[in-house]
Structures are given as C-alpha cells and as structure tokens.
C-alpha cells in the first residue's frame, strides 16, 4: 500500500491474555497470549486441529477460557457470551457455515441488523411508524451490503439453495450488517476457487480500508495471508509458535516445521 491508510493501525483492541482451554482431558489451547490491534487485519494460521477455531470461540464468547481471560479495549472481560460480544461490536462468521437455512439471503443479512431493531413485538405487530421506519432503514442498509458484495441477483433466494461460495458471502454480509468494529472470520474462503478468493480479499480489504473494521481471519491459503494481512499469529497444538508480520512468519523455521509435520520444541 503506497497511500497512507485512512485508519492507521492503533493500539490493542482485543487481547488474549494467558488463555488456556481444556475439554475434559484435551488441551485445545495452552497458555496463549497475543493482541489484536485496532484497524489491522490479523491472520491466525496453523495446521488443522491447532486450536484456531477454539480461540475465535473464546474471543466471541462461545467458550469460556479454562484459564486466563480476554480483554476488550484494555478491560478484562469477566463474563463473555456471544450476545455480549455482539453488543460490544464484535461479529463473526463460522467455519461450517451457520446461515439460517430457511430464510432468504436478504433476511439472513437483516438478522445482522438485530442490534438496530429497537421496536418491540407489539410495535412490529401493530406496524407502528417507529417499526416501519426501522424496517425500511434496516432493509436499505442491507441492500447496500448486498450491492457491495455483488449478490443482488440472489437476494430473495432461500440460502439453502445457494452454492457454498455464495453462502460464505452471505455469511460475511450478515456479519457486516452488524456494523461491528471487529470481524472474526473463520475460514471465510474455504472451498472457494481463485476468482472467488480474490473477490473475498477485495471485500475484506475494502471493509478494512473504508470503514476501519478490524479483521481477524483464520485462513489456510498462505497466498491470501501474505497478500492482505498486517500481522500473523501461528498456532500449533494450542500454542503460539510465531507472531509478527507475514514475511517474518513465513520464513520462521518453527512455522515451516509445523506445517511439514516435524515436531518441534
């Protein structure tokens, strides 16, 4: 990037502090600490089963760390839940897609506007002006997102009928609809071809560039990671084995070993 960023990378917005996560006897995450700085694109990479999704789940409140905690804007979070996380401005997508199968593309994205739907059920039932205005405004915002992601043609299609790549896009749209300051994307490009990946990279960069959204993405494609991320953290067997700019990480011997399956200290 030759031009100065509109939203230069700032201080830590989310910090993982000495987090460990155990499931029965399985140690999914072991004493992990790293920071996610505001406005950056942070990649989390590592071999399968390294604990990446579990880490994301800890950050977004689905799992509670067995030890350690997550901090948001410097404050340690005492309780966290997906709900609280969303209200704090942290939204996400899921590795195995978690779209609302029986709803259309537009409706799925509209659910992302839930935080901006302040009318109660009575106002909705009786179609009070407040409810109608809200609905109109939320719909307009979602149409913007639909246009941005170039999925206008399928906006009324039930998502179950869409191919995988488009479903992934819709999920991104839903997360974008929350106007979150932090987006956690769990393998947003899995199963996509080169063209689709290029497109998703373009969207992610645009969102980060124009809105300043901090993006944390779990990704397997090293090309993508090198292209768009500002910094990378590498996980293996639940532990961090590298943390730094993409070039550094790529030439780190431990990282190379991990991906090749060679055990290391």
């Amino acid at each position: 990037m030759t031009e100065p960023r509109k939203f230069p990378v700032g201080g830590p917005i989310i910090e993982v502090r000495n987090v460990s996560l155990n499931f029965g006897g399985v140690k999914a995450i072991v004493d992990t600490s790293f920071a996610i700085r505001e406005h950056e694109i942070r990649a989390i990479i590592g071999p399968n089963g390294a604990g990446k999704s579990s880490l994301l789940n800890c950050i977004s409140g689905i799992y509670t760390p067995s030890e350690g905690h997550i901090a948001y804007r410097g404050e340690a979070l005492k309780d966290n839940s997906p709900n609280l996380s969303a209200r704090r401005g942290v939204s996400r997508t899921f590795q195995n897609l978690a779209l609302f199968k029986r709803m259309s593309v537009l409706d799925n994205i509209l659910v992302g506007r839930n935080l901006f739907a302040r009318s109660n059920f009575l106002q909705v039932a009786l179609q009070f002006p407040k409810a109608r205005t809200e609905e109109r405004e939320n719909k307009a915002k979602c149409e913007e997102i639909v246009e941005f992601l170039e999925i206008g043609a399928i906006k009324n299609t039930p998502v179950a009928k869409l191919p995988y790549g488009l479903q992934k896009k819709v999920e991104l749209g839903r997360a974008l609809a929350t106007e979150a300051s932090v987006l956690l994307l769990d393998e947003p490009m899995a199963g996509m071809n080169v063209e689709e990946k290029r497109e998703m990279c373009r969207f992610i960069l645009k969102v980060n560039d124009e809105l300043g959204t901090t993006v944390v993405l779990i990704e397997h494609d090293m090309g993508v990671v090198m292209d768009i991320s500002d910094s990378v953290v590498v996980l293996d067997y639940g532990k961090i084995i590298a943390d730094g700019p993409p070039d550094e990480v790529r030439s780190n011997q431990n990282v190379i070993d991990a991906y090749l399956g060679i055990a290391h200290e």
Partner: protein
Amino acid sequence: MTFTRNDIVNFIVLMAIAFVLLPNLVTSEYWYASILIPWLCLALAAIGQQVVMGYAGQLSLGAAGFMAAGAFTCFNLILRVPGIPFPIALIFSGLVAAAFGVLFGLPSLRVRGIYLMVATLASQFFIIWMIDKFGWFKNYDTSGIITAQDIVIFGKEFSSPIEMFMVVVVIVTVLTLLAINMSRGSTGRSWMAVRDVDIAAESMGISLLRTKLQAFAISAFYCGVAGALFAFTYLKSLEPVAFDIKLSFEILFMVILGGLGTINGAFIGAAFILLFPVLLNSVGNNLFHGAIDATIISATEQVVFGVLIIVFMIYEPLGIAKLWENIKQRLSRSGKEGVEAVRSNPSR
C-alpha cells in the same frame, strides 16, 4: 410496509367472502356452528402453535392447556366482573394464558427437542388438573356441565350462529394480521434465527432468553384467546376435559401437516384435521350405509393421520403449504413455458 399488493387483494377477497358472500349464500346454521366457527378457532390456536414451534422452533405440546387457561379466565371474568365487554375479557384470557406460557416455557432456556416436549406436557397436565380440582374456577359447579355465558358487546347480544361467526371472524382476522406482521418483521426473523442456528442468532446480538420466552408468551396468548372463543362460540360450555392432551396432539398435527412456519399452514392444517373426520364419517355412512362401526371410523382416522405425518415428514417436511407453493410454481413455470413455446413457434 409488510403487505404487498397481492396481500391486499387477497385480504379484500377474503373479507368479501366472509362478510358479504357467505351470509347471503350459506344460510344453513350447521355450516357456521359446526364447520366455520371451530375451524377459525382452531386455526387461531394453530397460529399460536406456529409461533412457538413453526417459527421459533420450540417443541411444545401444551396448546390445549393454554386454551383451557384462556377459556376459564374468560368465564370467570364475565362471571365476576359484571358488564365486562367480551373483547376485554378475551384480551385478559390471552394474558393469563401468556403468563402460563412464560412460566412453562422456562425449560426452553436449557433444553430442546423431545426434552422440551416432555417439559411442556407438565403445563398441559398441570393446568387441566388445577382447573378441575379447584372448584373456584368452575364456580363450584357440581353438575359437571358449565354453560358458557352469552357474548355481549356494547350491549348487543351475539347468540345466533351467524352472529357468533361474525365475532370470530373479526377477532381471528385481527389477530392473524398481527401475526403476519410479526412473522415478516424483526420479531419473526429473531424467532426463525433462534430456530435455525441459535448460536449464530446469539452471535448477532439476539437474546435467546427474551426471544424464546416471548415466543412462548405470544403463542400462549393466541391459544388462550382461541380457547375462550372455542368454548364460547362452539362448545358453548366449559369442561376441562375438552382441552385434554388429545387436543394438543391435534393442534400439533395441524401445524405439521399444514406446514411449519407459515400462517397459511395453520388454516390449512386446521381445515384438514377438522374436515377429514367429517368426510370419513359421511363416506362411512353413505357408502356403506352405516355398516361400519364408529370405532373403525375413528381408528381409520388415526391411522390416516399417522400415515400422512410420516409421508409428509419423508417427502415434504414443510407440509401442505409448501406442497401448494410447489404446485403453484410448477403451474406458473409451465404456463410461462407454454407462452414461450407459442411465441417462438407462431405457426402452431
């Protein structure tokens, strides 16, 4: 605006049928008293079931219990609050039922599926037991048959079948419109999100607690009003036994066969469950001249319902409403194809 031009046209047509066509064409009281009125009342209860199960995905077998709560609340209000307008009594019937709905909906915060279904059975059995055991609810009636009072609105008595039909149509229409609005708006989307992937719903800021309890409350409200209407315009009496587990199963079947998650499905399902036995009965009586035992007929009914449910679950889990949608789409598509064929081959 949640209503399209299509909706408005449909609405006007339906209202014309209800208020103009029917009263002039159908004069037989039997039709109103035994077919239309129970159909609308049960459809309203089925809408309640749709809200909690079809839209919000919470398995519930407590519909009849909430109906009973509504019916007996209405009875007691009219009895003890002299001059209370019927619509007000109905609203309170719904509210009392809604309170039970919230109470017995609490397990939904912890469990789902068959576990939740068993928990809702508690509400069904408890409410009926409570009404039965505490004489106060039945005004210490010992005859076992409590007659429902007359429906009086603004001093006018509505007692003939066609008058009661009008009352039911108005109430059901209003409540159905409210339900449609909710289902198409943010309320309905929250329900459906919780139904489809609750973790994702939560991650979008939806509160599972609020959404689930709200669904139970609204569902019970509809069942409560439906129960009061059912008792006052159809049964014309109040007996706890009329709201037993069998009715809960019937309402469950209505939404399954009619189509989970659609308002149409509630009406279609109610019509089917109500009319099929009537059809079977008349076939039995006319074709076989009463040679078939009543028990065989009711047994056949059960078998047919059971088979239909299994068949629908295998081939079209979204019920008759979806089937109808599919047929309409096929017809319109083949219609379009027909037009295309003619256009491209003008000599035909």
